[in-house]
């Protein structure tokens, strides 16, 4: 089952937002992870995860079946899944867990999958790349530090963990056995420090980005209000950049700043980078390779500091 993991070869599930909005997350993940001995093999034919808020709150049957289909694709490759997005993690990890432990649900889902000649077997595991990076079993902080050629020295970087990777922690081995603290975790800060940057704590760090759970789609002003509060707290700490491990959170902080400017008239100009992008930079990838010019908020001030 986790043998695929032991081989350090994973089926790479991209999701929707990363390839469409932040393609650098994809290239950085593949290249940086390769340097760390982990091969990410594209999971061909994958669909939307599907988004936990949008689908999970409306039709659970569709939610289970779509996620199960993605899982089956990886099962056919005989590889565990690695992914780069908290939302995808929530959907795919959780459906995998549920299907493994609930026979009735598994039978019902397989009934649907039959129509496309598929069967969910429960033979693989699902990991977030951040988990692979932090967990010594796969990579670990030391290996990351050793891989750095362009340390991000002097940069003050705050971390946004995002909700769906951390909670609910009840059944998740990574959260319970590796992260340990899910209310005020600091393992991402360790990763940031490994790149040579200075991790910065800020008020209400674990607050939601504002986008998740369908809030961004349903009530954008409300969503931005939450984002704005986080940005206020970040500004207080004078950080050079915010890093995240979820393209959706990234979208909310990055594009969200432009929307906040339009709607509330407040400007922050805080660069927001996925940790994969940061890691790529620290391993010597160029900002162009990472597609940083595609970000809504310019990364220039931050890049000037670290390059």
């Amino acid at each position, binding site marked *: 089952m986790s043998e695929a993991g032991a081989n350090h070869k994973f089926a790479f599930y991209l999701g929707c937002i990363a390839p469409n909005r932040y393609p650098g997350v994809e290239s950085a993940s593949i290249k940086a992870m390769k340097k760390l001995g982990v091969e990410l093999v594209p999971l061909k034919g994958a669909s939307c995860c599907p988004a936990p808020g949008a689908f999970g709150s409306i039709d659970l049957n569709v939610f289970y079946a779509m996620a199960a289909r993605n899982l089956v694709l990886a099962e056919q490759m005989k590889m565990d899944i690695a992914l780069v997005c908290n939302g995808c993690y929530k959907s795919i990890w959780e459906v995998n867990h549920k299907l493994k432990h609930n026979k009735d649900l598994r039978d019902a889902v397989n009934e649907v999958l039959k129509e496309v000649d598929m069967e969910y077997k429960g033979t693989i595991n699902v990991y977030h790349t951040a988990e692979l990076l932090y967990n010594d079993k796969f990579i670990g902080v030391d290996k990351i530090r050793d891989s750095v050629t362009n340390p991000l020295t002097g940069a003050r970087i705050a971390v946004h963990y995002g909700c769906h990777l951390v909670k609910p922690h009840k059944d998740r081995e990574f959260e319970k056995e590796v992260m340990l603290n899910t*209310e005020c975790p600091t393992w991402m800060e360790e990763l940031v420090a490994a790149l040579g940057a200075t991790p910065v704590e800020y008020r209400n760090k674990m607050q939601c980005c504002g986008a998740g759970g369908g809030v961004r789609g349903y009530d954008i002003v409300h969503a931005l209000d939450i984002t704005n509060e986080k940005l206020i707290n970040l500004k207080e700490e004078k950080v050079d950049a915010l890093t995240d491990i979820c393209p959706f959170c990234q979208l909310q902080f990055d594009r969200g700043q432009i929307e906040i400017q339009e709607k509330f008239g407040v400007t922050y100009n805080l660069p927001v980078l996925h940790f994969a992008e940061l890691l790529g930079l620290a391993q010597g990838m160029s900002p162009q390779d990472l597609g940083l010019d595609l970000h809504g908020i310019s990364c220039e001030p931050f890049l000037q500091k670290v390059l």
Partner: protein
Amino acid sequence: MAEKKKATTKKTPSKKEDSKKVAPVKQEVKKQVPAATPKAAPAKPAAAPAAVSSTTQQGDARIGVFICHCGTNIAGSMDIDAVQESSKSIPHVAYVDNYKYMCSMPGQTVIHKAIKDHKLTGVVVAACTPRLHEPTFRAATKDGGLNPFRFEMANIRDQNSWVHMHDRVGSTDKAIDAIKIAVAKAALLQDLYPKSVPVEKAAMVVGAGVAGMQASLDLAAAGIKTYLIEADTSIGGRMSQLDKTFPTLDCSQCILTPKMVDVGRDENIELYTYSEVHEVEGYIGNFDVTIRKKARGVMTPKEAEAKGIVGGGCNGCGDCETACPVVKPNMFEVGMKPRKAIYINHPQVVPLIYTIDFDSCVKCGICVTACGPEKRAIDLESKDEFIKVKVGTVILATGYDIFPIEKKEEWGYKRFENVITSLEFERLICASGPTGGHLVRPSDGQTPKRVAFVLCAGSRDNTGTGKPYCSRFCCMYSLKHAHQIIEKIPGCVPYLFYMDIRSFGKMYEEFYYRIQDEGAKFIRGRVANIMEDKATKNLHVMTDDTLLDRPIDMEVDMVVLASAVQPSADTNRTRKLFGVSCSMDGWLLEAHPKLNPCGTTTAGVFLAGVCQGPKDIPDTVASAEGAASAASIPIHKGEVELEPYFASCIEEKCAGCGMCVNLCPYSALSLVEKDGRTVMQVTEAKCKGCGTCGGFCPGGAIWMNHFTTPQIVAQIDAFLLGGEQ
């Protein structure tokens, strides 16, 4: 089921062969029984011949079968008439009857009347479980003039009608099978006589909180010598850490200290502090307990005298403490006050004898000098001592610990200085505590003006981190805390964040109203998160006000977490020594939650106080008095009857290999020389009848009373082959 049916119908052809195979075994055993029985020496010798002759029951066995409806519990799920009809044709059955409630007085009368009228030799009741009503029906069997062990139960309720509620045919068939099996055994039952053993006129109480102290005082007052074992250096338990007590608000120390003094003074109580139960052997009436008295480094006047130091020993002057250079946190003050390596918990301790914490002591010897040449109380080389005592009954009163609430990370205990636990609050508000009774913020020593109380902190928690149960006294003590700050700090407002206020006791709801009237604020909502303002160290309490339906972010100066409680650390080891079970949450398991809350399933071992489950002081004391009363009954009776289910050795067959001796978990077996041969011998009082040895013996030399090989073989036959015709 279908398969089994086939087996039953097929039985006739194969039957003869099988009965041939089985019959000789039965005969052989029958022959042996007279030989074996004298060794199983019944307590009443006069009865022995009867027991022997009665073993020849099977041939002329006349069994009565009594089927219970249990209202509709059984009758609602099976066809009682069909069960009755089928039972009539079971071999040896001489009489069948059914009744609505077999355990009622009229039901029991049906049984003993039938025994006499139909000259029955054995009784089968098809009803609930032996656990519930075996004693009832044994008594009814006895009333009918038979030996009470001529009774066998068929469980057709708990393991049948209740589980197969909607399968009438299946449960009817299963009931018939169960009765066949029970009749097969009943036809081979022998008269047995319980053995009486004398009960040691002494008791042991483990844990000297208010529960253990009360139980000991009651036992002592009933004239019973009581060994009270306390792990800590002084007695009193958690109650001695409390300031005031709800709902009457009397000072905890004021009501507890007299009891502590009484315990220390009572001639019938032998107090062992800084001690634990090391080893337990034996059974009700005769527990041999080894107490480990931990090296204390300081001698009592008595101990000093025994060493020839007349007029010496610790008098509690504290000169050693003043001199000792090693400083450690005082855990009685929840670490908020320092103590030395040589210490007492607080000034009112009983016994007033200092203790050296040898994990911190650097053996500099300064205290020895400070203590002086007269007292010479300190012995830096003292060692653990092991003391053996014999007691008739035991009460466990090991109390509770506070759940490590830092595990609920969202509330920031140990991360934010001004988040404290309720137990810390008790010490801070207590005049004898580390701040002389002034509630102050740990961060800056300032008096708080807004204090939030988080109730159900770690209790009623199904996230897997906390405890699923209600800790039962935190609502009430938080109300008390609210009152205390209103009374002590003018203008200070307590905010209680709660799920429900459970004020269920006598005068408790009235207390709740009183605190409301005094101005405490109540917010119904489980606290989601607490955040610290880095600059002021004030705290933001975030929740959803579920009555006003709106989110709350309240800034306060201090937060008090009403932490859940859990069984004390050493409870698990201690309970195992006494063979006591615990429930899933770790609290010790009572024999019956309603009708025997102080008893356990180990005869002679009882429970008092919070170790059985969270209780406030009134309930703790009530349970302690209940346990003391229950524990004194066998002692006052002077003897207890042991179930006569012990193993016995069929000496002609015993090869003296001794393998069973090592197998017995209760050390009931030994090898002895008899007529020039080595044979096994059973100490009947120690044997629990578990059958380990009987099942193992390669030569079949062990006879398990009431669970004999012929009985069990007959039961299996009855099920698989329909039994003999």
